[in-house]
């Protein structure tokens, strides 16, 4: 009885979908490891290792997934708010990441310099400028969506194609290398823990506290459910949608700095490529409706790490980088098909007829 209750509760919970997906990925890993003789639970082992470059660090598959999935998780945070408030997706985040990385590296190296070991401006200035650029991009998107009532996908299409190109222009069409340890910090280690994990954890904590303390989370949901009704109830819905986009841009900026710090360079053509798709997928996988309204940050974050786990697992299974999208496509379709109203209605009818038969 008790277990049944728990199951019912979980069935209703938004977290059902991401948790099941995560468990599935783990199961695949355990089976694969057991068969290849690596030890069934090598997926979960975390060890301390000594390295020449970074001192003692944590090593393990889980750590690697958390580390690699940081950018997608950061983007998913912002994307969740945008989807919830405006019932649309921001497809520019990958490009904005690239622009912020380019802007930050361009400031740190100086305009026109393609490789440097010395910073031209203090590190903090470059990083802040990168984040500000993200906010500015978000504000632009938000203006189009909230004030001019343009469909989110269409509005963000402008920066999707322009941001990467502007980034290239800032870098003088070159890859700018900032080979300085202080800049590399955001992509390496803080003590034994990879810095991106810490940055993501801090962002998640800050955002959830702000959403809880200021009731902003509630406002965003209510705007997403019915923006007209919210306005009548005294909420400035335009303001809230605009804010959601700015926050989304800010997180894209942070993700961009992390991504460029990992490779200590601004590779405008490749940073954040297709990452907007991962972020949207993470939101959908997190059990959030892409039609706006109710949202769960936890779901999106689990979704983002699940996608990273899927990617790493596919590589471990020997699927090449270029072939992996086929599996992602199948996963997306299954997830959205389950959530689709006609399918839901169909399942409900089935289960109803079953239970009525049981009664009879």
């Amino acid at each position, binding site marked *: 009885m008790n277990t049944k209750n728990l199951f019912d509760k979980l069935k209703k919970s938004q977290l059902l979908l991401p948790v099941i997906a995560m468990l599935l990925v783990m199961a695949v890993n355990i089976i694969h490891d057991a068969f290849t003789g*690596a030890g069934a639970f090598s997926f979960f082992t975390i060890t301390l*290792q000594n390295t020449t470059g*970074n001192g003692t660090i944590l090593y393990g598959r889980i750590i690697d997934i958390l580390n690699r999935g940081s950018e997608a998780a950061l983007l998913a945070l912002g994307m969740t708010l945008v989807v919830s408030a405006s019932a649309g997706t921001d497809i520019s985040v990958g490009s904005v990441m690239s622009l912020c990385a380019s802007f930050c590296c361009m400031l740190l190296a100086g305009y026109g310099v393609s490789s440097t070991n010395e910073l031209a401006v203090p590190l903090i200035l470059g990083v802040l400028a990168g984040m500000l650029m993200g906010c500015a991009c978000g504000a632009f998107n938000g203006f189009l969506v909230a004030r001019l009532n343009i469909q989110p996908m269409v509005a963000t299409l402008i920066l999707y194609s322009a941001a990467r190109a502007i980034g290239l222009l800032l870098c003088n069409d070159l890859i700018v290398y900032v*080979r300085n340890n202080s800049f590399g910090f955001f992509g390496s280690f803080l003590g034994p823990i990879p810095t991106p994990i810490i940055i993501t954890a801090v962002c998640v904590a800050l955002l959830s506290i702000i959403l809880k303390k200021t009731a902003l989370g509630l406002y965003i949901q209510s705007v997403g459910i019915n923006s007209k009704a919210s306005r009548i109830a005294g909420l400035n819905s335009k303001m809230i949608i605009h804010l959601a986009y700015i926050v989304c841009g800010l997180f894209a900026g942070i993700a961009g700095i992390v991504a460029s710090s990992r490779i200590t360079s601004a590779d405008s053509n*490749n940073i954040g490529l297709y990452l907007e798709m991962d972020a949207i997928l993470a939101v959908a996988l997190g059990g959030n409706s892409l039609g706006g309204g109710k949202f769960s940050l936890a779901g999106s974050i689990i979704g983002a790490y699940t996608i990273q786990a899927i990617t*790493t697992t596919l590589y471990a299974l020997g699927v*090449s980088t270029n072939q992996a999208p086929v599996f992602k496509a199948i996963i997306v379709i299954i997830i959205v098909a389950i959530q689709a109203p006609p399918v839901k209605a169909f399942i409900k009818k089935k289960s109803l007829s079953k239970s009525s038969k049981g009664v009879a």
Partner: protein
Amino acid sequence: MKKSIFLTIIILTISLLSGCSRANEITSANSAEVISDNKSSGSITIGFSQVGAESDWRNINTESMKKSLSADNGYSLIYDDGQQKQQNQIIAIRTFIQKEVDYIVLAPVIEDGWNTVLAEAKDAGIPVILVDRKVNVEDNELFTCWVGSDFELEGRKVCEWLNEYCKANAIDAENINIVNIKGTEGASAELGRSRSLHKAVNKYGWNLLDEASGDFTQAKGREVMAGFLRKHKDINVVYCENDNEAFGAIDAIEAAGKKAGNDIMHGEIMILAFDGSTEQAINEIRNGRISCIGECNPLHGPRVEKIISNLEKGIIPDKYEYVDEDIFSADTSVKTITLDDISYNIVTP
């Protein structure tokens, strides 16, 4: 409602105005250019279609070309960055033909699919000089000549170095477990360097555990290497097809808590790489994290300049011109390697 319409109209005007000012900028930039065109009316116009800016090597290559084919040397260079897309390069060549340039210099992103557009250049009577990577065309007359590196030789040199190193340090061939981080699949450098490795693996009996493309970038190189380390426990040699991939591989190896170095029988992982054109790569050789680099000389500019000035005088160049290249290593157990009866000294930077 009224307010929002008013607002949009303001934005519209601003964007229109900014559009106009941008157009003005273009015009002014052009008028300046027209003047310089007139000034150097006797100069030779060259259209250069570059792959993109995907690596350090490429940046240096671009700079070399721009420097050698400068206005001071009597050339007017039209540079086009293809952003690693063939479609862009095809458009660029068609634009060069339309602009009636005297020569076209092409660094093709991939080897295939150039027949049609090179035939158009030939019909217009414009000589095409290929640099760096080659092209697969039926009719070799479609290009005048090719300047670049012998990628297969570079690969053979590095493989021979590894063989000599094993001999010098009494390491059995069976104990060599190699993974190959390939370059952009289909690029000449990838094909040549992979071919050499495959031949050497067969010849010396090494184990080739795995291969995957790292697209010549640091980020992809790191990702691929991390995957390899998870899949195979006994990797001791990594064959990276350029420096940037090697930097990525080093990151992944250290993140996995292992060490990059020469002592492959005691848990270290040896990194072999190509290019060696940057300070960072040479530093990695000095501190021993990269064991050996087959140089790939990016300074094609002077060679191309020479060919063009010869063509102007009516001298037909060789079809294939190779640039001279060294091999770098900080290890002292191997001094020279010999290939086809030619011996190459190992350069210690």
